[in-house]
């Protein structure tokens, strides 16, 4: 997708000049009435992987924060030389960390925040504020400002709705120092979205400062320590903040496919007789699998009895749990890590799901959902051939992060999705201590 063009070259100003400059800009160069009456989007955009791949010469610049095929291919190709397992997902923070140990001094222009992906610009953000931390910790704070308007062919005859972009760039300390700017820039009149486009392990204070209760937060529970990811989600939900999880959104093909299996009314009774649920995920990040298991358990009214690690050869290879159905019968749940040759971009992508139902007086029903990028042979084993089999292939979404984000923006969700709000606390309990 082509990026949106700015009206003017980004202007570097000292931080304290920015609010006044923007006020002047909208009063003179741009007619204030053309300002989009939409929302403010604040993005934490560390792009550590891209920055490290560029620094070490594996890809060329510029640094723009966009995830593309070239970036993922380069990341997959350096996994082994960094000493990480081949099934490490490109977006796993450990890859960027390992790359940080490698030598390299390549430089590139830093254009983070100055491109607005078309998927997002189509929603006409009134103000896009990008926090762009640099690899150099002592990098001083730089503040860039520009205005943008939609390209004529994108406005579809509707009146122009312009906006502006503000970039705060510097070392982490400098960014934290620049936070004071955010208050006046965000304002109260329009909704504000905060997109934490990085690992949940880093800068917890900064996340806390950005994710004020009045703002709508978007994060990704696949990036960071699983316990920390779930704890952040649960805490935000518990404190009534509107939180959206891109990792949750990525599993919608699975929830939709499973719901579809039980759409025909004749199949629905089987849901009252589930005895076993197996979920396979890529690598060792279990959060997406746990969220899926928790969603199923919540929707079917199961009560969690216990959860435990499943060891093999001295390693934890999975998570087991026992639930009790509302009729008192037991349901066994197992979430297993499976190795894959070419991992998905984000850690812990779902590979397969098996749900076994044993309705009384009827043939058992076995539902197997399988990722189109992987095999389900493990789930197809174990005597399921004697059961009524319902198999579906779940397509892998090729949508970019920006596209997912654009969907959220178009949805205008000002509260947490109730399914996520119910599933996240249960997923946190499912993850054994």
């Amino acid at each position: 997708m082509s990026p949106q063009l700015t009206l003017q070259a980004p202007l570097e100003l000292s931080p304290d000049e920015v609010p006044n400059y923007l006020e002047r800009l909208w009063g003179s160069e741009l007619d204030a009435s053309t300002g989009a009456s939409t929302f403010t989007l604040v993005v934490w955009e560390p792009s550590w992987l891209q920055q490290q791949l560029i620094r070490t010469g594996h890809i060329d610049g510029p640094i723009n924060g966009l995830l593309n095929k070239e970036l993922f291919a380069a990341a997959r190709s350096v996994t082994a030389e960094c000493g990480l397992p081949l099934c490490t997902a490109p977006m796993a923070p450990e890859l960027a960390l390992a790359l940080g140990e490698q030598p390299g001094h390549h430089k590139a222009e830093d254009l983070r925040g100055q491109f607005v992906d078309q998927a997002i610009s189509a929603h006409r953000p009134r103000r896009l504020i990008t926090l762009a931390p640099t690899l150099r910790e002592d990098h001083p704070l730089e503040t860039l400002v520009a205005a943008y308007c939609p390209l004529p062919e994108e406005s579809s005859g509707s009146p122009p709705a312009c906006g502006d972009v503000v970039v705060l760039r510097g070392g982490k300390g400098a960014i934290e120092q620049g936070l004071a700017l955010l208050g006046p820039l965000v304002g109260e009149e329009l909704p504000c979205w905060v997109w934490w486009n990085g690992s949940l392990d880093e800068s917890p204070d900064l996340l806390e400062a950005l994710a004020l209760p009045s703002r709508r937060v978007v994060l990704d529970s696949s990036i960071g320590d699983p316990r920390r990811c779930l704890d952040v989600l649960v805490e935000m939900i518990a404190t009534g903040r509107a939180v959206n999880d891109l990792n949750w959104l990525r599993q919608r093909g699975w929830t939709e496919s499973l719901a579809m299996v039980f759409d025909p009314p004749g199949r629905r009774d089987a849901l009252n007789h589930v005895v076993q649920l197996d979920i396979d995920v890529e690598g060792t990040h279990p959060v997406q699998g746990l969220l899926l298991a928790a969603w199923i358990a919540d929707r079917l009214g199961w009560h969690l009895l216990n959860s435990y690690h499943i060891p093999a050869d001295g390693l934890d290879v999975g998570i087991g749990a026992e639930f009790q159905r509302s009729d008192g019968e037991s349901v066994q749940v197992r979430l297993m890590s499976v190795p894959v040759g070419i991992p998905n971009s984000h850690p812990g992508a779902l590979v397969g799901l098996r749900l076994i139902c044993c309705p009384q007086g009827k043939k058992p029903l076995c539902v197997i959902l399988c990722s189109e990028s992987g095999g389900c042979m493990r789930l197809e084993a174990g005597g399921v051939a004697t059961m009524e089999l319902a198999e579906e292939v779940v397509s892998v979404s090729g949508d970019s992060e920006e596209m997912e984000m654009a969907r959220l923006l178009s949805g205008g969700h000002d509260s947490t999705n109730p399914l996520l709000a119910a599933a996240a606390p249960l997923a946190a309990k499912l993850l054994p201590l």
Partner: protein
Amino acid sequence: MTSTLTNPLRVGLRQERVISPQCLVIFGASGDLTHRKLVPALFELFRQRRLPSEFVILGCARRPWSDDDFRGKMAEALADTIRDHHRDWEQFAGNLYYEPVDLQQSEQLLRLADRLDGLDRLRATRGNRTFYLSVSPDFYGSGCRALADAGLLSDPKRSRVVIEKPFGRDYGSAEKLNRIVRACAQENQVFRIDHYLGKETVQNILVLRFANTIFEPIWNRNFISSVQITAAETVGVEERAGYYESSGALRDMVQNHLTQMLALTTMEAPGRFDPEAIRNEKAKVLQAARLANNEEPWKCCVRGQYSAGGSPSDPFKAYRDEPGVNPNSTTETYVAMKLFIDNWRWQGVPFYLRTGKRLPKRLSEVVLTFREAPVQLFDAAGGSPTANQLILRIQPDEGAGFVFDVKAPGSGMRSRPVDMHFSYDESFGEPSDEGYVRLLADAMLGDPTLYTRADEVEAAWRLYTPLLELIEDSPWRLPVQPYEAGTWGPGAADSLLASDGLMWRRP
């Protein structure tokens, strides 16, 4: 036990767009449509969590009600709906307000503007407004003018106006109304409603055609021999005689609902799923449509009016005996016609449209009949070979069916038709939203995809102008023919197809 009446895994899965903070102003709030359709649809949106917390419904009508009166009237009218959702209703009713307004009195519009400003401050609705004209069609033009004069449509990004059907009575009046509306607001602020477009199954015509690769290659004159579009009702005129007497089936059903089904069935594929792209294609195909005989329209159209019928235990009155109907009325309650579309895709393919009241079944469907096999290799078990048919069932039993020949069991090689069918109920098992739920949400989201554009409306009226002029100027050329209530219309409608060697599908 979890209830399996609904699919528990389906609940809450739909990732719907959420409406921005705003105020929905309903003019005609004391009318039938408000409590029968609009407020129930808004309550449903509220229950689906699709309304923001900063949301207001401001009812406006001439009656001197208070906010509490309005809330009470709506609660009374929706008593059955809210019985099981009392807590939801309590919350929802807090969003209902009322302002006595006569659209013809400019000072009252100024007072309304003040009230809206007050509600903006009180409920943080940010000046974002949707005005719904649920008033007599005579007031659409003056209503728009009054809103514009009061400055309520001046911000194209924050104000929009929804106009109910019928949009005009003929081409001339529709064009005039469009001129007035365009002078008051930009086209992207205007939402002309046709509730048929809110039906899932009508929208499914687009998905079936353009999400599958198997249909488009055969969706043309080379493979399709004829198309029938039917919208049949079992009910009579009910309490709508006042309106129906001046409109009739042609204006009430054909110009809007049947024409929309025709447009969706015959339009070219849009380049993208975008409101303008879709409406461009619909307008283009309607501009290419014409009556089968524009010079002598009485030869391609049949009008009918139901006479008494039914059984001794369940008798039906004749239309002329219905309350409020002129005993000598010549209003048609049934109309059937033949159309052509002059473009590369459809040249020469006849389209038969019919609609009527007091027919034996309530149903709406589009039936595409395919050409017969060029050589008949097999004897047909039924005597004559059956053409393939694709049936898109709009309502009831929503779904689709495909009729094709298979080998009849036995030692010979005889063919017989079978029906392969898809049913929304069997596949999804969930009731779909009432059309107004979807359409109201879209208007408040500013998405005009399922609304008709000015040129579409005009093209639809232009298509039927020869018929309307004929009925106006020489009604004896196209008299209303009586048909017994509970039958499939006048015999002349069968003759219309019989002359082409065809028959209406008997559903």
